[in-house]
């Protein structure tokens, strides 16, 4: 989409938000508390930026949530590669993957709180939600490998390393790319939700919870914006790296 076409809907909804907030503030004495305006949220964000505690929260949350994404992503790719040629392993993984997909994240968060300390919670939950889409997509990519190319590799006696790169990686990379994009969004949502419930000290989730307790809606929107920006930023960075790899591979 052209930048102009992307911009106007955002401006429209920001104006609608501003209008809604102003209308609530005019209708009720404490209307401003119910829906902070984008201007107030933006100003609050600017106030937060110089605070060391802000960066500590961003750093802690990013480290754990992205750590979960990377660990789980690597495990999912590895297991998909192993399972591709082993139907018994695919069958074995069907129930846990289906359970992780179907069970509400909140159930896992509460269960994980029993097992783990709150600091490891977001890492665990983010890893949990990342696994199914990455595993299933990469497995599908490998499954769709062109059998005619495998025959070519057999006849030409192409060594395993080149075969892996030229056939399997080339085939699975587009699937991995779309799964990663989806999983990065999911891991931020689930990871921050886990922090809000587990309240590990010095995290974005804890700050969101504090905003809720004290009805600090400008803080709530400011921190939500931070999560959105972080999610978009890491998605962009990760996909740029994957695209560079894909470009090198020619897909």
């Amino acid at each position, binding site marked *: 989409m052209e930048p102009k076409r992307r911009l106007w809907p955002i401006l429209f909804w920001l104006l609608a938000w501003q209008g809604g907030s102003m209308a609530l503030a005019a209708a009720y004495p404490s209307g401003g508390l119910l829906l902070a305006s984008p201007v107030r949220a933006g100003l609050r964000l600017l106030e937060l930026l110089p605070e060391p505690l802000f960066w500590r929260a961003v750093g802690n949350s990013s480290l754990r949530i992205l750590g979960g994404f990377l660990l789980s992503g690597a495990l999912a790719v590895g297991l998909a590669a192993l399972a591709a040629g082993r139907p018994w392993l695919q069958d074995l993984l069907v129930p846990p993957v289906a359970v992780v997909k179907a069970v509400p994240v909140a159930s896992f968060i509460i269960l994980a709180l029993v097992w783990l300390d709150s600091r490891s919670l977001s890492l665990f939950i983010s890893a949990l939600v990342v696994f199914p889409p990455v595993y299933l997509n990469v497995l599908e990519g490998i499954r769709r490998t062109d059998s*005619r*190319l495998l*025959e*070519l590799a*057999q*006849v*030409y*006696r*192409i*060594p395993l390393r*080149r075969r892996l790169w*030229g056939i399997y990686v*080339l085939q699975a990379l587009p699937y991995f790319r779309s799964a990663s994009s989806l999983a990065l969004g999911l891991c931020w949502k689930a990871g921050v939700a886990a922090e809000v419930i587990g309240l590990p000290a010095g995290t974005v989730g804890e700050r969101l919870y504090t905003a809720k307790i004290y009805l600090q809606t400008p803080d709530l929107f400011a921190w939500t914006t931070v999560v959105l920006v972080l999610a978009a930023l890491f998605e962009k960075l990760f996909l740029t790296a994957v695209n560079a790899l894909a470009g090198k*591979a*020619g*897909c």
Partner: protein
Amino acid sequence: MEIQVEGLWKAYDGKPVLTGLTAVFPVGITCIAAPSGTGKTTLLRLLLGLERSDAGVIRGGDCRWAAVFQENRLLENLPAAGNLRFALGEPPPETPGMLASLGLEYGDPRPLREWSGGMKRRLALVRALLAPWEALALDEPFTGLDEENRARCLVLIREAETRGPVLLASHDCTGLEDAPLLRLENGTGVVRRP
């Protein structure tokens, strides 16, 4: 070195395709001529070890093969150089010259999905000829080529034919009248020398 097949049988879903074929393929080109669907590709696939025969023996077939398949089997997202590196590792020094003789460029940066069908066919042939083969299977190698490019390809195949048996399956063996000919009929046939 020669390749022999003896009493080769192959059927798909009970429908026989090869019915006791016995033939010897010496060094050089042997043209395998037959209408579509009469066992040319099946014979080559059995020789390449991609399928098992129902009965019969293949002698000398466990050598190092290269092939041009019915389809090009190229990596469409890679350029020519990437495709040759994938199949051959570091391509031999004669690669740019051989490509140029067929009107192709080693340094062409375009992925093959942007190439014409004829260009891809020629690249598939170059890939096979540059491979370190002891026997070569060519399944309809001239598909999609005009007369001029067909003639150029044939020159390259002719230059390579002293390296080992070259089995060239085609519905059209024009220009190969001096080569042994196996005409498959009803799943069998005899190699006739010119």
